[in-house]
């Protein structure tokens, strides 16, 4: 009995912990671009956005509809993309995910993966169009970046679940 009680407390802790852990991990995801190496092609997946989508698909109560604006602002400050692009695409993706989520009766991993892949693809392609001249030779690298990011999505979902999602609200 005591074992299950402590497990319950642990679960409740995790549930509450996610309220501050979720924004922090999204910002940490954005901050991966500060790692000390100078890239010659776009290779870093958009971990900030991936964490945001991961948390949203796991739990709908963590963020307000306007939270992606602030998180996107933080990403814009350090990512080197045109100012406002992450604010725009992240919030647009978040609202779209909200809409899709309200239409679906239930979701499993494959639904989540497809939704996340759509968000990543739209954001990366959109930011490429906004930031870089169309004649630039970046499309193959961009495609690889998108594929790699989509392949990493289940790991992000797993991380979010581990950090604070599992279990029922108490």
């Amino acid at each position, binding site marked *: 009995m005591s074992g299950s009680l402590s497990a319950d407390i642990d679960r409740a802790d995790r549930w509450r912990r996610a309220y501050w852990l979720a924004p922090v991990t999204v910002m940490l995801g954005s901050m991966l671009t500060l790692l000390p190496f*100078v890239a010659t092609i776009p*290779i870093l997946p958009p971990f900030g956005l991936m964490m945001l989508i991961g948390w949203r698909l796991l739990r709908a109560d963590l963020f307000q509809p306007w939270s992606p604006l602030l998180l996107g602002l933080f990403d814009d400050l350090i990512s080197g993309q045109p100012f406002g692009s992450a604010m725009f695409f992240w919030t647009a993706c978040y609202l779209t995910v909200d809409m899709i989520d*309200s239409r679906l009766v239930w979701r499993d991993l494959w639904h989540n993966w497809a939704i996340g892949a759509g968000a990543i693809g739209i954001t990366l392609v959109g930011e490429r169009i906004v930031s870089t001249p169309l004649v630039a030779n970046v499309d193959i690298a961009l495609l690889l970046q998108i594929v790699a990011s989509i392949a990493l999505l289940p790991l992000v979902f797993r991380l979010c679940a581990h950090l604070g999602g599992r279990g029922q609200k108490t």
Partner: protein
Amino acid sequence: MAPPSNRRPGFSRRAQYRRFIGYVIAATGVAVAAVLMLISTLSPGAFSPLRGAARDLTTPLSSGMDTVRGWFGSMTGSIGEHFGAVSENRRLKQQLADSRRLVLQARTLGRENRRLRALLRLRDRNPDTVAVARLVSSSAGSTRRYAVLNAGSRQGVRQGQPVRGPNGLIGRVLETGFNNARILLIIDPESVVPVRRTRDGMPAIIVGRGDGLVEVRAASVANAPFLSGDVFVTSGTGGIYPPNIPVARVVRNASDSSVARVFASPDTADFAMVQQVFMPEAPPAAAGEAIPQAGDGDE
């Protein structure tokens, strides 16, 4: 497993209103963000103070991690060097013998060049180094190619100054913060560098491609042939980059335009020198007085 639906927050009017207002704020924010994005595309420097301040906080973090990377980087490098040491030794000896003749020739030419320049009373601008610092991070997730330099306005770095490494040109300063500067690398799609070929002095421009390589385009001659191995150095045209900094080597035979590889590949460049703008634009009011003063000072 179906996640708990959070569509309806119950029958509380207050909660429903709050949720609705949240969506209104989000939609307004999307519109505002679109306007911000438009502004920053049309005038890229618009938000540079804001970003500079953010980088002031994050640059110490990157440079702290950079020391750690230094240990690991040198470790893997020395393991790689251990194998292939014999063949490399042989190759280097051969290269040394080849270049000895060239060095002798270059020394004589250099001496002669100095003598002739003195005869002509040619005044050279010797670009001064403003700061030497490390490139600590980059826009790794973006399709643009920026790097962050660990020196800023406190060290005298100003917007527009050229940045070079020991092997060649790296880029130029785009915006500065207090202790950091954002560098537009020459492999960025929006970078243009006026160059000339070392072989015959043919003028050309080097434009970034965005995939780590650059494109050389002939500036004046139509159908100019580019041969694999042609070396291009800065020409000093345009007044930003000082002349004779190595920029890139052509990798493929082609005419009119060809693909080239830069000498100072930024993923290997750790130290970068910021130099003075080669020919800064004279301030319009003081232009009349500055010219005689420069002449007097030279005597």
